[in-house]
């Protein structure tokens, strides 16, 4: 039943097909091996090979292949319901893939809990940030990893370390004793990221870290992503915003309805193409045809849209060279 379903997923193909095929993959596709040299030639920290996930009869994720190496940022892009959350849950150890292989540093793994993934250095910063709003910042920072002197918490040390770690990330906090719920969204995000970094994360999974943030705060978070990469961490950056993903990403995995619609090295794709794929060029084209058919001023808008699409060289289909692995 899988194959026909795949075709059903692209209903726009019929009308848009000629254009799609005609669209040249304008930037020359750089050889995959050349792109991978960015990984430092080492074994990727995290790699999924043909991973799928079913919940009963629902296929949440199908045949996903991706990887992230040390000092790299792999961006996972997709609209709501594309399977991003499922992908995170698999990598974070909350779920196991129904099929396919999940490798950490070259060895296949099967995690029973997020704790096991954490022990392998895979830390997840969820959208809700896994913070407890009513608890002080420093208690949140060390929650689950409390520093103790015998049975007692070493409160002075934890407060000092928390403040120092946050300062190293450039976060100037009024008081680490204040409830974390009183911080701004960007500050909370950064506390969560620096917490993961402090506890020796090798791979950082960031679940839509910029989704609820303003322009300036998003910029701050992107800066920390770059900083984490510079420190040699592998970052899996989940987002639906190609403008956030493109500047910081080394690889881009695009998801739609639980399937990969493209997996690119940075050199293989331009920002506009990425944006086009995310926006769903095929859907836009269909929209432009519909508008033109409507006539009147709507038709003008439709023609304008069509011009934009061809100008950007975007389409709903990934190029034939899209699947890098």
């Amino acid at each position: 039943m899988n194959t026909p379903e795949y075709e059903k997923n692209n209903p726009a193909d019929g009308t848009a097909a000629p254009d799609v095929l005609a669209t040249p993959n304008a930037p020359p596709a750089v050889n995959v091996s050349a792109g991978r040299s960015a990984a430092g030639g080492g074994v990727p920290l995290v790699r999924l090979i043909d991973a799928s996930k079913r919940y009963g009869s629902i296929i949440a994720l199908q045949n996903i292949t991706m990887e992230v190496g040390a000092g790299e940022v792999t961006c996972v892009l997709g609209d709501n319901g594309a399977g991003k959350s499922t992908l995170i849950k698999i990598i974070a150890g909350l779920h196991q893939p129904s099929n396919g292989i999940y490798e950490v540093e070259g060895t296949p793994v099967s995690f029973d809990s997020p704790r096991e993934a954490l022990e392998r250095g895979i830390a997840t910063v969820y959208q809700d940030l896994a913070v407890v709003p009513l608890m002080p910042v420093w208690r949140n920072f060390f929650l689950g990893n409390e520093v103790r002197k015998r049975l007692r918490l070493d409160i002075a040390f934890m407060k000092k370390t928390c403040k120092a770690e946050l300062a190293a990330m450039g976060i100037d906090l009024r008081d680490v004793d204040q409830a974390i719920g009183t911080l701004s969204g960007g500050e909370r995000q950064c506390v969560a990221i620096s917490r993961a970094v402090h506890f020796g994360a090798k791979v950082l999974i960031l679940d839509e870290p910029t989704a609820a943030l303003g322009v300036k705060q998003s910029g701050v978070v992107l800066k920390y992503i770059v900083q984490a990469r510079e420190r040699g961490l592998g970052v899996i950056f989940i987002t639906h915003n190609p403008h956030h993903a493109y500047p910081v990403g080394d690889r881009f995995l695009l998801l739609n309805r639980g399937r990969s619609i493209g997996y690119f090295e940075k050199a293989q794709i331009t920002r506009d193409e990425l944006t086009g794929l995310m926006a769903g060029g095929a859907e836009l084209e269909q929209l432009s045809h519909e508008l033109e058919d409507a006539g009147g001023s709507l038709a003008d808008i439709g023609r304008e849209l069509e011009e934009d699409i061809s100008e950007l060289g975007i389409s709903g289909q990934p190029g034939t060279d899209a699947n890098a692995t």
Partner: protein
Amino acid sequence: MAQTAEAPVAPPPRLDERISRKSPLARFLARPEAGAIAGAIIIYIFFFIVATPFRYAASFSSVLYVTSTYGLMATPVALLMIGGEFDLSAGVAVTSSALCASLFSYEFTTNAWVGVLVALGLSLLIGFLNGWIVVKTGIPSFLVTLGTFFMLQGINIALTQTITNQVASPDISTLQGFNSAREVFSASFTIDGVNIRTSVIYWIAFVIIATWILLRTRIGNWIFSVGGHAPSARAVGVPVGRMKIGLFMAVGLMAWFTGMHTLFLFNTIQSSEGVGNEFVYIIAAVVGGCLLTGGYGSAVGAAIGALIFGMVNQGIIYAGWNPDWFQFFVGVLLLGAILLNTFIRRRAEAAA
């Protein structure tokens, strides 16, 4: 990246000007037990004026005693509430434990201590089952423990009736080991002519231990986190299920202790006792600043909440009023405390 080279420049250590605005009073009012302390002072002054006997040390010692019987249970109930759960069976569980100890050691003519240990096992088991059902099914603890409340109440009365043909357990004061058990659970001593029961000392000790656990240990951190936001706690590796079951078992443990105290004080136990006390424990915790939604509160607050109950309970008697007014006062206290706490928290948060 150019900026990374400059990043390690640490901000100079200084007193942050942004936190100096918070006055000591605002800091005190932001504490969970602030409302309870204010309420306790008002009620003390009130009964000090209207009830003459209330002013004597001897009467205050009996206030403290009544307080301790509530406070022993209010402490673990407060921890459980901070952990995000309720236990409506806490009141009758005390009676169940006492009945179990007395009936077991009386019917099998064992040493009283054997009954005590069997009751301990039963109480921990009840706590475990409450917690286990809540954790495994995800059904709100309000409903689960409402069920166990009725079950225990039924068993208490029906089993006692079946075994003894009476509504109370037999007098066990003739049993071996009774006196030593009484020494442990229900002793009293005299200071300056004032009789003080050891349950008061136990209560204060347990409050100190609970406070220490909450604020100074990892377990305490975890209790706040499972009540504050369980998914977050789980995500950072806190064993949420085990924490909750453990908290229910702590309630069971203290129900056993309170039950043993009552049993060895009166030698016998009424099978219908304890109904309604679960609300007293919960209200003491709420008056003491525990949030109904979990994640916030203190053991000291619950202790002061229990003290308010003790003062009202005895104050009404010393004032010579009809004791039935107690129920009315309980309602007034609960409403007043909730309003005061909400008001204070809003003010404190606005000032912060």
